[in-house]
């Protein structure tokens, strides 16, 4: 049997490795493709000055040199300058401006998901509602986002980019993310399934016989699995945020990544992808810490009574 710390340990290792792995894989991919790396990341058909680009981005001295110098700069908060999305602006500034919007969008989108999870765990949401949630969840984020965008235009008309409209965009985007692509439905069914399986354990029956609440007894034992489910949901939201941000005109990291991809702005794409990897690593760390906390909690020896 594996020691309790192996799994959270692997997660923490993965969390440390992920922000390095993403630029590493991208670097390896660029050099694995046939042709000049500078021409691959910005083809001459769309970009001029390939030699200058290669020198500026350290693409002319091999993959290891590129990777180490980029990571070294990134650790100091320096991601180079955008050459097409916002030409000349530091990519770090673009990331700094867009990250709060994505974080706010994802946190707001977690509200319906958290409510669904709590409702499923406590039994407030009846099982017969799952079918209806699953049907609504079949609608892709794009379709709901389009309807949301149309609603903003109809409601605000020419003022569709004012402060109030932007707030509505954020709220509608969060609702779209939280409901579409099965986000809400799978949160409800996932948590329900987890608690249903745990309820069959003997200790829960004994807790009920002792007059205790089953939920409080089950919670520590299902906490690691709940943390895993939550991480999967947030990753799903981060992935969906790209489409929702672009369609609704929210200038978050997803929108930045899309603009960088479309305009072949390698610096922006590399930094935005790494930002997503850092967010994902933070989630992995949280899951690992929950696992460690639960493992320590269940291993804590109870204080011996005098009778014992």
């Amino acid at each position, binding site marked *: 049997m594996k020691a309790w710390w192996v799994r959270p340990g*692997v*997660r923490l290792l*993965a969390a440390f490795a*992920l922000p390095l*792995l*993403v630029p590493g894989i*991208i670097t390896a*991919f*660029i050099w694995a*493709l046939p*042709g000049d790396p500078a021409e*691959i*990341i910005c*083809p001459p*058909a769309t970009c001029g000055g390939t030699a200058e680009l290669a020198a500026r981005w350290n693409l002319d001295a091999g993959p290891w040199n590129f990777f180490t110098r980029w990571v070294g700069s990134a650790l100091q908060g320096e991601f180079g300058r955008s050459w097409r999305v916002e030409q000349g602006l530091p990519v770090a500034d673009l990331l700094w401006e867009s990250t709060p919007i994505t974080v706010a969008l994802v946190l707001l989108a977690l509200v319906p998901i958290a409510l669904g999870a709590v409702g499923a765990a406590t039994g407030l949401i009846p099982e017969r509602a799952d079918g209806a949630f699953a049907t609504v969840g*079949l609608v*892709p*984020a*794009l*379709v709901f986002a*389009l*309807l949301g*965008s*149309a609603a903003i*235009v*109809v409601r605000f008309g020419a003022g569709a980019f004012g402060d109030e409209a932007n707030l509505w965009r954020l709220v509608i985007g969060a609702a779209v993310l939280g409901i579409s*692509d099965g986000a809400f439905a799978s949160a409800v069914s996932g948590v329900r399934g987890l608690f249903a399986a745990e309820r069959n354990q003997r200790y829960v029956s004994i807790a009920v016989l002792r007059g205790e609440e089953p939920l409080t007894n089950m919670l520590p034992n299902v906490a690691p699995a709940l943390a895993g489910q939550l991480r*999967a949901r947030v*990753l799903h939201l*981060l*992935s*969906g945020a*790209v*489409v929702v941000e*672009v*369609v609704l005109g929210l200038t978050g990291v*997803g929108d930045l*990544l*899309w603009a*960088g*991809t*479309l305009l*072949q702005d*390698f610096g922006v*794409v590399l930094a*935005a*992808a790494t930002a*997503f*990897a850092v967010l*994902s*690593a933070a*989630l*992995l760390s949280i899951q690992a810490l929950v696992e460690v906390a639960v493992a320590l909690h269940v291993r804590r020896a109870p204080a011996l009574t005098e009778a014992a």
Partner: protein
Amino acid sequence: MPRTAAGAAALVTLVLLLVLAATAPDHLTDARRELAFAGPGDVAPFGADQLGRSLLQYAQQGASVVVGPSLAAAGFVGVLSIAGGLLRCVGDQRVDAVIQVLAEVLGALPRMVVILVSAMLIPSTSRGLLPLALIWALLAAPGAMDEAAAVAERLGGARFVEALRAHGFSWSRVFLYHIVALNLRPVVVRQASEVLLQVTFLELGLSYLAVQDSQSSFTHPDSLKSWADLLYMGYTSIGLDMPTGHALALGLGLVAAVTLMAKLTTSAVRAR
């Protein structure tokens, strides 16, 4: 819905989509401005775009963009999830560990981010939906393999195989019939259907975002129209009161047809 009816409905939808894809023209027909935004009554069966071209061609070209790659991705995930289930039955812990590590690493990456980075790096000569669909399938595969492995484990894994072998069944019968056809089938088909649906939505999403920015899509050449073009055209009927409601209805109808097909397929192969 009975399993047979669900399977038949899914098959009919798939055949219709394949027919649409197979009959897609390479280019849209010439403009006929007098028929601009004509409804289904004037230009059968779905109406016309702003230049009087039939929307049927949009539906056909969109199907040709999406059907092949999404089926390929579904097949890829199906094969890998079968492999995941069978490997659990072999009972090799090292293979299990490798799959779990892969699932951990690949599962930690937001899929859309990987797709966008790949879309940028894939050379323009190789661009299309197929490579992106296969990358999506690769990212979905560890989860599918893990689920199939869990099903195989509930069967008893290696002991289940030994027991059937002791009854005198051949290896091929044990693996292909007892494990894959009788037990892994529901989960494999469900995973494959989900990936098919996700790839369709991925194409719609990527193409819509490109159309919105008046750029070329990563998923198909400019000469082809995606179903996202129908949604984009139709969207103006809501916000700008343009007479394009028929395009929106067709776009949403096609999305609904693929969704229904995926769900009916899952329903048709569900466990007894």
